[in-house]
């Protein structure tokens, strides 16, 4: 009378012919995966990071001086002031410049790979740019510090200053060049560091342009370049701007290489060769002293929180524009 009907779960219900041990295993594994909120773990981790920093933060203790360029940090205690101004300026200048340079270069590379180059070379070049993504930032840092900085200080920057003195930012006092560390060197290395990400995203967005649109252009007699200009670039606009944002986010969050190369001077940089400082680099350099000075610990919490909010905002916009990262490889 108890005819076994079709399983309640429809077609995707558990099979009816499992042996008892298999049933136990089945139960356990379903429980393990379904019963616990594992999918939420990335969310929980993210919320944990934001939460801990918010908990540690005490913005009201600082007031407006935190948002200024008041900078009188020794000794940390009463009377000293911590404005994020100089660091924010340094972060913005380096990240924006690196982003602009990286955009030009990666757009050129992405167009080459998608449109112009045959399969084999483009695959090899992709491998190399991916390799670039894996090089540790501290390795870029030591190369920049030991190899590039003397070259920048003795040759490149003096001649740039002579040649481009009429460009705002490229003139400035001679002392600003110093040993070669400074904004220009930091921007140079940052650009190389963010190029793999921006190139990968632009590559995918140029590739995602519908074939029908591309072929319509070619069939009408347009050259490859005209199709790029009139069809691919306009249709991939969102992805390209998204890459800009994500590259900016990466650049503003980079601490190690920047700290090694930017010259670590909190000031309004006198020129593009001059020393500066960024929020991320300052956190990295000063956390050791934070042990001794509770006030400095507090300041660094606020700095980290501000950096976190900036990068979340930038990443939200960037990922919205690139349409999320589901179709892309996890490499980006």
């Amino acid at each position, binding site marked *: 009378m108890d005819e076994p009907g079709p399983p309640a779960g429809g077609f*995707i219900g*558990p*099979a*009816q012919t499992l042996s008892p041990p298999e049933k136990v295993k*089945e139960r356990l594994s*379903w429980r393990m*995966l*379904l019963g616990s909120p*594992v*999918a*939420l*773990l990335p969310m929980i*981790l993210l919320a944990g*990071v934001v939460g*801990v*920093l918010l908990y540690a933060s005490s913005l009201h203790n600082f007031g407006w001086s935190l948002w200024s360029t008041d900078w009188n940090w020794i000794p940390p205690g009463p009377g000293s002031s911590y404005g994020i101004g100089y660091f924010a300026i340094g972060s913005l200048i380096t990240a924006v410049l690196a982003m602009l340079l990286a955009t030009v270069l*990666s757009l*050129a*590379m992405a167009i*080459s790979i998608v449109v*112009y180059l045959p399969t084999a070379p483009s695959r090899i070049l992709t*491998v190399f740019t991916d*390799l*670039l993504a*894996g*090089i*540790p*930032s*501290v*390795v870029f*840092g*030591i*190369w920049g*510090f030991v*190899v590039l900085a003397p070259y920048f200080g003795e040759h490149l920057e003096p001649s740039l200053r002579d040649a481009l003195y009429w460009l705002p930012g490229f003139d400035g006092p001679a002392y600003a060049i110093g040993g070669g560390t400074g904004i220009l060197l930091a921007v140079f290395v940052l650009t190389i560091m963010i*190029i793999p990400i921006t190139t990968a995203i632009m590559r995918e967005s140029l590739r995602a342009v519908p074939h029908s649109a591309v072929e319509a252009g070619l069939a009408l007699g347009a050259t*490859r*370049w*005209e199709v790029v200009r009139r069809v691919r670039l306009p249709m991939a606009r969102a992805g390209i701007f998204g890459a800009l944002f994500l590259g900016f*986010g990466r650049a503003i*969050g980079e*601490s*190690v290489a920047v700290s*090694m190369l930017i010259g670590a001077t909190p000031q309004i940089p006198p020129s593009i060769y001059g020393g500066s400082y960024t929020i991320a680099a300052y*956190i*990295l350099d000063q*956390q050791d002293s934070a*042990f001794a000075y509770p006030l400095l*610990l507090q300041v660094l*919490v606020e700095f*980290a929180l501000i*950096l976190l909010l900036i990068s*979340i905002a930038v990443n939200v916009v960037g*990922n919205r524009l690139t349409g*999320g*990262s*589901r179709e892309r*490889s*996890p*490499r980006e």
Partner: protein
Amino acid sequence: MAVSESKAATPADLVTYARGRLLFRVIVDKAMGWVLLLAFVAVLFPLADMIYWISAKALPTFSVGTLTLDQVGTGGGLHSMIIGTFIILALSTTIAVGIGVLSGIYTAEFAPRRVAAAARVAGYLLAGVPAIVLGYFGFYLLVIYTGWDYNTLAGGITLGIFMVPFIYRATDLAFTNVPRDQREGALAMGASRFQYLRRVALPIAMPTMLSGIFLAMALGLGETAPLVLTVGWSNTIPQTLLQPTGYLTGAIWNFYDFPSTYGHFQTLAFQAAFLLIVIVIVLNVLIQFIAERYRRKLRGLLG
């Protein structure tokens, strides 16, 4: 002048004009192909220069001792730092693989659509959190708040959190991209969802997942900021996980700005950089190899 009054252009004029334009357009097209290639020179030349200089500074003094000796004074080798790197990486990989793989499978297979969408957003936001901020989070929570001081465990946990989003996304992608007919075939044959996951989806998803794990390991291996803030520094192998340790990126960070005449410090930094580059290249080759195999496998599956 009288000609222009009669008609704008004869068909012959148009053809001449179009030929001229065509030549110009084709030249622009070809020229752009070459101009754009300059970008590769601009990017790959620095890469080559970096690899050249780091090898040039590291290799002349590179010996077996570099790998087997501890750092003593301003000399010695990188032994304790290599061990430290492996301890940290083992800890963080365990944490990140556990969290990343479980939540990735859940997101791809089980989660309701909205939960999955939200989890994915959280995943790439987590990937976008700057390493230095993660480091400060670890510093505040695991070093200061717990009162543990700098320790290896804090570094492993912090680095693990850093690695989670890469593994999570790779796993999610791998299981989402299992061909639909494989899934429906398995389920139509009466497989449970778990059986489908283990016997059908896992073998197909494995290569993508593995390359995500190797990628996360390569990135974790090269991170400095989260470790500087949590692990501290020591030139001996830690006896417990609550002691600080040395690690390869830290060797560069700590020794890079010593004058090259001051003992062996800067050379040690370059040797560490050289080792890191070699490991990263090996991991990259491994990832490429796996990706290639995956492509073949999928091609086979899809006929």
